[in-house]
């Protein structure tokens, strides 16, 4: 795979991407603020939601066992998958045993993480994404670039081209027409499918319920029309009970799209029972670890409280500039910069936590108040301990530590550096810096250090002033209008 910085360069050159990202993130950001402002006690609800999520992590294993028991009571078959390969294998086995050949899927990040579609097709099981955005992603042969808006990176013209090329319909860029075309195609698939695959937004422990939120109604069709329904759910997606689910629902839609509630909220508690009008005949839940239990014991365990609303992406100035694909894996943006190294290991992914100015916009919008900057700092520390760091940087910061803890050495170094820098910059500005620092002068001049430091000016002032003289009396240009 290409290197992170190469993907960044490619993304930054893509004007169409930038325009699409600016429009979408701005709209989502302002809708989020407005809808949270209209929620009474939103701060308290966020605090309570955080407490509920963090409380679960203290005994995740115990909570999962209770959840499993309650699922089984409801007639659900429960499977445990240590990694993505295992989850996909379990799913293929379930499909084969039940004789399923045609699968429909509603939007699921967990199965993006396991690359399920690839493994299903290998096993001769046809699979169709039914979320409109995911459907287009599948047609285009790419991957989603946002947690809740998979095709945030595409313009309507680009979508029109994809549909024209892949399903041979006349070209149009009219969103309504495009949606209607997809609707017809998807309806055929729903009616003929024998396997429905979903993720889970939440798993309610005490009732053994799988919760799905969606806006297109596809999740409801996927979970009711086919004979068999398989849920692939990350082991962290629990909530204790329906009261806590209420908290999550209140903040999820608002944080994600600015909706008070999504159009559909489906609570699925087992397969169809005698006398019920709809539902699947056979229901399975695959509980996916895939690195989560490794995160659990460490300093970034907090990220397991993430409810995948995507608000941090929309608020992140880095994401807004580079989009989701540059992050190189399933989860983009600030949450991805933590989840990806967390799930996959820091080696190979250390660039992600570095790609942040630590501005904290993500922490500000996170509905469950995850301290994302803190976790980025933890991962950077971890990278220094575990991953390969350029020798020059290692030596540079070692030198910084040695020098900046010795004032005399520090001052001498700074003065010498200043003299050298001013030689490069007769007008006080450096236009080109060498080495790593050259990144700065890519788009900025660098102001050279001043001929006299603040401390020099300070000492000169002290020397010029007779001892014991008090500081200048306050002489404001006008009378202060307000001194508290």
């Amino acid at each position, binding site marked *: 795979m290409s290197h992170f910085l190469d993907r960044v360069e490619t993304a*930054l050159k893509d004007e169409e991407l930038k325009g699409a990202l600016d429009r979408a993130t701005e709209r989502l950001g302002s809708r989020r603020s407005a809808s949270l402002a209209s929620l009474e006690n939103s701060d308290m609800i966020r605090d309570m939601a955080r407490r509920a999520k963090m409380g679960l992590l203290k005994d995740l294993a115990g909570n999962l066992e209770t959840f499993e028991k309650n699922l089984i009571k409801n007639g659900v078959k429960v499977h445990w998958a240590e990694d993505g390969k295992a989850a996909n294998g379990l799913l293929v086995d379930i499909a084969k045993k039940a004789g399923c050949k045609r699968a429909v899927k509603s939007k699921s990040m967990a199965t993006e993480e396991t690359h399920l579609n690839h493994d299903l097709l290998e096993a001769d099981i046809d699979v169709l994404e039914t979320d409109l955005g995911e459907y287009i992603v599948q047609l285009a042969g790419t991957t989603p670039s946002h947690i809740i808006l998979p095709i945030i990176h595409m313009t309507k013209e680009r979508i029109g081209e994809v549909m024209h090329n892949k399903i041979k319909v006349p070209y149009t860029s009219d969103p309504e027409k495009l949606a209607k075309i997809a609707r017809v195609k998807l309806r055929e698939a729903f009616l003929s499918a024998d396997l429905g695959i979903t993720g889970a937004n939440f798993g309610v422990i005490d009732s053994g319920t799988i919760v799905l939120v969606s806006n297109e109604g596809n999740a409801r069709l996927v979970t009711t029309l086919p004979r068999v329904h398989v849920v692939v759910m990350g082991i962290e997606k629990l909530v204790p009970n329906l009261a806590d689910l209420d908290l999550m629902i209140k903040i999820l839609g608002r944080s994600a799209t600015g909706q008070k509630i999504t159009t559909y909220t489906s609570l699925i508690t087992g397969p169809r029972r005698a006398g019920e009008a709809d539902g699947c005949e056979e229901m399975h839940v695959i509980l996916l670890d895939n690195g989560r239990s490794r995160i659990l014991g460490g300093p970034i365990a907090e990220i397991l409280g993430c409810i995948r609303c995507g608000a941090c992406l929309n608020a992140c100035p880095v994401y807004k500039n580079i989009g989701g694909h540059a992050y190189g894996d399933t989860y983009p943006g600030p949450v991805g910069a933590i989840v990806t190294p967390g799930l996959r290991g820091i080696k190979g992914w250390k660039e992600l936590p570095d790609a942040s100015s630590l501005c904290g916009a993500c922490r500000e919008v996170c509905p469950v108040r995850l301290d994302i900057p803190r976790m980025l700092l933890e991962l950077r520390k971890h990278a220094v301990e575990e991953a390969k760091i350029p020798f020059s940087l290692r030596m540079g910061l070692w030198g910084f530590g040695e020098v900046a803890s010795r004032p005399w050495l520090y001052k001498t170094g700074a003065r010498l550096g200043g003299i050298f820098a001013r030689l490069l910059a007769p007008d006080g500005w450096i236009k080109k810096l060498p080495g790593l620092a050259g990144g700065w002068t890519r788009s900025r001049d660098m102001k050279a250090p001043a001929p006299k430091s603040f401390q020099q000016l300070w000492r000169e002032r002290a020397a010029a002033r007779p001892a014991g003289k008090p500081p200048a009396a306050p002489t404001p240009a006008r009378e202060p209008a307000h001194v508290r």
Partner: protein
Amino acid sequence: MTKPKSVQLFHTCIINEVYPEVGMSVVSILERLGITVEVPLSQTCCGQPAFNAGFHADARKVARHTLDLLSANPAPVVIPSGSCGDMITHQYHMLFADEPEYLAKSHALSERCYEFSVFLVDVLGITDIGARFGTGAADAFKAAYHPSCHLLRGLGAKTQPKALLAGVQGLQCADVHDQEECCGFGGMFSVKNAAISSGMLANKLRNLEASGAKSVVSCDMGCLMHMAGGIRRKGMKLEVKHLAQVLEEGLGEKAEL
């Protein structure tokens, strides 16, 4: 708290080396308000460059020095930078999580560390120091306030700098689109991820230019040095100023220094 008579100034390395005049403006404002300023001359850096890069052991060496130095004097510490202020008051806790002696020291010190605008507004209770521009027009000087991320979100100081600017007669605060968005500095981020940082800076400068402001005012010379570098490269007219400089200029003749 009772109003302190004297403070120690942690002048930050950027101000000491690159923008010494900002340090003098800070001193001037504090002295006009009757505060005696002490400058611990052995100060170096808060250690943030190493900390943010993940080099905690190296950062700790510098942070121990800073903690020892500033703890030796009981006077409150004034820091004319949201970023260094956030480092000392918050991040030191993470840095010394496994070192009880320095953890206790960092908690004790953080109780009496104040960013410059926070010190003026929250400790001294001042929002109007009598500064003015022009001779009466409300918009004699149009300035864009840039809330630095670590001041805004790290220290949670959203209102204090704005209150001080609102107290300056003849100064009009320009409306800036996406005002609270990062300028793209982020210390080492600006060189390690120069491409992204440059994209962020370009957005910021475009929005500042569109605001019609003559100056961009902030409480952090890191962000301002970053923006100034971009402004100069692009040949823009915008000036950068620390809040203390604006206040001092608004007081007319420079204080006796």
